[in-house]
């Protein structure tokens, strides 16, 4: 369906599945309730000589329409907990990930790369503004923080969103499944230029990514 953005990460399709399953469930509820509403309005409109039924309730009905929603929400909850833990659970982060740091500030994204040694916090780290470059089919773990106010790291195509909080470093992971360019948006009101705090995510093939990292470390690189 064209209503959701393209899906370009491993868990995007899981989230989308959840979205559509919920749509089916609430869609059924919607149709049942609204149809009953319209049906009753038509069928039981006032007509001369007819008196309303003097009924105060029905315990069986109450039990049924308590139990059915309750069971439904429990089912949704059980499914959700699993996927939520998989995406946000800090003990579940994938191994062999590219490790980056992103600092959000008014009004830009500063992405720090670990450089050829693959380790953050070493001499060969380098920082780029508003450009997140990652390899395809490999997990990426981001240490997300904010310099000044709240921001929110949002890549619609990856279905990932995480608030960036000054004073906290919050880990986020995702794994891109398609090469190409995607947009990064700020999703938490952060001031007057919040609306233009965008970044560009570029997903490379593994080889191109190595190439890019090497090129960034040479003396001519920089932004």
């Amino acid at each position, binding site marked *: 369906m064209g209503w959701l953005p393209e899906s370009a990460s491993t868990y995007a399709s899981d989230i989308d599945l959840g979205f559509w399953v919920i749509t089916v469930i609430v869609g059924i509820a919607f149709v049942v*309730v609204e149809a009953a*509403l319209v049906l009753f309005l038509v069928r039981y409109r006032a007509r001369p000589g007819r008196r309303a039924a003097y009924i105060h309730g029905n315990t069986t009905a109450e039990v049924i*329409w308590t139990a059915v929603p309750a069971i439904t929400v429990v089912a949704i909850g059980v499914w959700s907990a699993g*996927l939520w833990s998989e995406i946000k659970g*800090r003990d579940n982060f994938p191994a062999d990930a590219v490790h980056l740091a992103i600092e959000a500030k008014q009004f830009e994204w500063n992405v720090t790369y670990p450089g050829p040694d693959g380790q953050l916090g070493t001499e060969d780290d380098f920082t780029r503004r508003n450009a997140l470059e990652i390899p395809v089919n490999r997990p990426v773990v981001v240490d997300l923080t904010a310099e000044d106010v709240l921001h929110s790291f949002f890549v*619609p195509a990856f279905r990932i*969103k995480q608030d960036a*909080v*000054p004073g906290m470093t919050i880990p986020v992971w995702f794994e891109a499944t398609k090469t190409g360019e995607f947009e990064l948006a700020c*999703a938490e009101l952060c001031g007057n230029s919040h609306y233009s705090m965008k970044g560009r995510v570029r997903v490379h093939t593994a080889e191109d990514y190595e190439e890019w990292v090497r090129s960034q470390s040479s003396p001519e690189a920089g932004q």
Partner: protein
Amino acid sequence: MTTAAVAERPTAAGHDGRSFIQRYIFTTDHKIIGIQFLFMSLLFLIVGGLLALMMRWQLGYPGQPMPGGGMLPETMAPDGILLPEFYNSLVTMHGTFMVFFAIMPLLVGVFANFLIPLKIGAPDMAFPRLNMASFWIAVPAGLLMVAGFFVEGGHAGAGWTAYAPLSARPDLSGVSLGQIFWLLSLAILGLSSILGSMNYITTVVNMRAPGMTWFRLPLSIWSLFITAILVLLAIPVLSGAAIMLLFDQTLGTHFFNPVEGGQPLLWQHVFWFFGHPEVYILILPAMGMVSDIISNGSRKPVFGYHSMVFAIIAIAFLGWIVWGHHMFQSGMNPMLGTTFMISTLVIAVPSAIKTFNWLGTLWRGSIHFHTPMLNAIGFVAMFVIGGLSGIYMATTPVDIFIHDTYFIVAHLHYVLFGGSLFAIFAAIYFWYPKMFGRMMSERLGKVHFVLTFIFYNLVFFPMHFLGMGGHMRRIYDPTEYEFLQPFQPMNRFITVSVFFLVAAQVPFVVNFFWSLFKGAPASENPWKDNGLEWTVSSPAPHGNFAETPTVYHGPYEFSSPLVDDDYLPQSRAVDPQPRPAPAAGD
């Protein structure tokens, strides 16, 4: 029994010896206080709507001069083009005025005040002078909030949720005095709300007429009573939060400033600990009044009255333990997210119960489509959508994607406008005769309802699709993002629809004011309802009841076999022998 069927027009110096000022300005009469809140809140509803109209202009036609925008000062919209900082304050103040100065006072300030003593058989509130103070404290709060637009730096622009650190740092937001006014205004308004709720609670507990047992109270009163308890307990938390933020701004404290060990997330926790009960404050009275009106319009008892009461209590109780669902993506421990998800999904159940009971009330009823009934039915239809859309955001992984998008905006407007505001319209149309002694025009009322219903859905339903597309909230210019550009036609469609939605309110405004002077004089009980308020004249007299009524049955004895009429007022005693079996019915 009470007065004649002809409506009495109050004279300036009534026979109770009060002057004009004592009757209408510094009055202690709960009914007039309710009407004072009505005028004030309707004014702020219009203000909130106009702010939204300006926001929608910018969203539909980004960067283009707004018609009439030339009248705005350079600091807001040079050459009529809205500035981003002004847009942010529009977003903030639209939410602020609508939540605190329109919907909340319309539901609580107006109807708790107007209905409680009348519907429980009391002459007035427990503390009439405190009640007067409650209104007159709200007025300067409102003025202060308006004043924020005219100070240097402009009005608060951090959202109605005022997240720190942005809201605490004038150097980062550009706003100083505006945010301070916002905080002070809400602190003052909070005092008004707390005084009001003290009155509502005490009155319902201690001043019910003989025979008005707890389970003979109308659901409107149950919901207002439970809501008053929520107000009493939640608003002080907002006051505390506002004070801490105010001190961060003005005294250099560090509650939310991480540099000195403060925690931005603390603001969110404290704010939403208030904020979630607040949204139930904004819906429960609506649900209660809708129950009264649907029962009346169907000429049938409310289906499952006891379940309805327990559902109100359950919603109020559970509402205290779901606040974290506003913070799933905030950086708080994800395991906490799971616990809040559970409580949030659970709270869907009592709301579902209520919806089915409304349907049950209509089932096998004898439905009369008067204007209040149309709006009450509209409430049910729209609240269902709002409630169901909530399931998406309760589901934490889906919320990762739709948090802070227009999907949330759609949800909140379906429950607050589709829900609360339609219920408010229903309640105004229903109790107007008792307030003013006149009937509103049914024809204008129906026109208002139909137009509002149509344009309201044209405005807010598409927002679900914007959100699905990833369209963020509080965005001054969506066209900055390539992935949002395809949504511009939808944004424009919404903007045009908003214009018509605002225009659709004209019949209501005209009806309201015209009927004050030219409406048909109202009888005691034009809706043939069972409530105690319909046993006194329209408008209701000062002191309400010449003699304290005695209550003999529940509030929804429509189509009772004990009487020929299809209604049975609560204070009308009857011989418990059923009337002869009816002719072939249904």
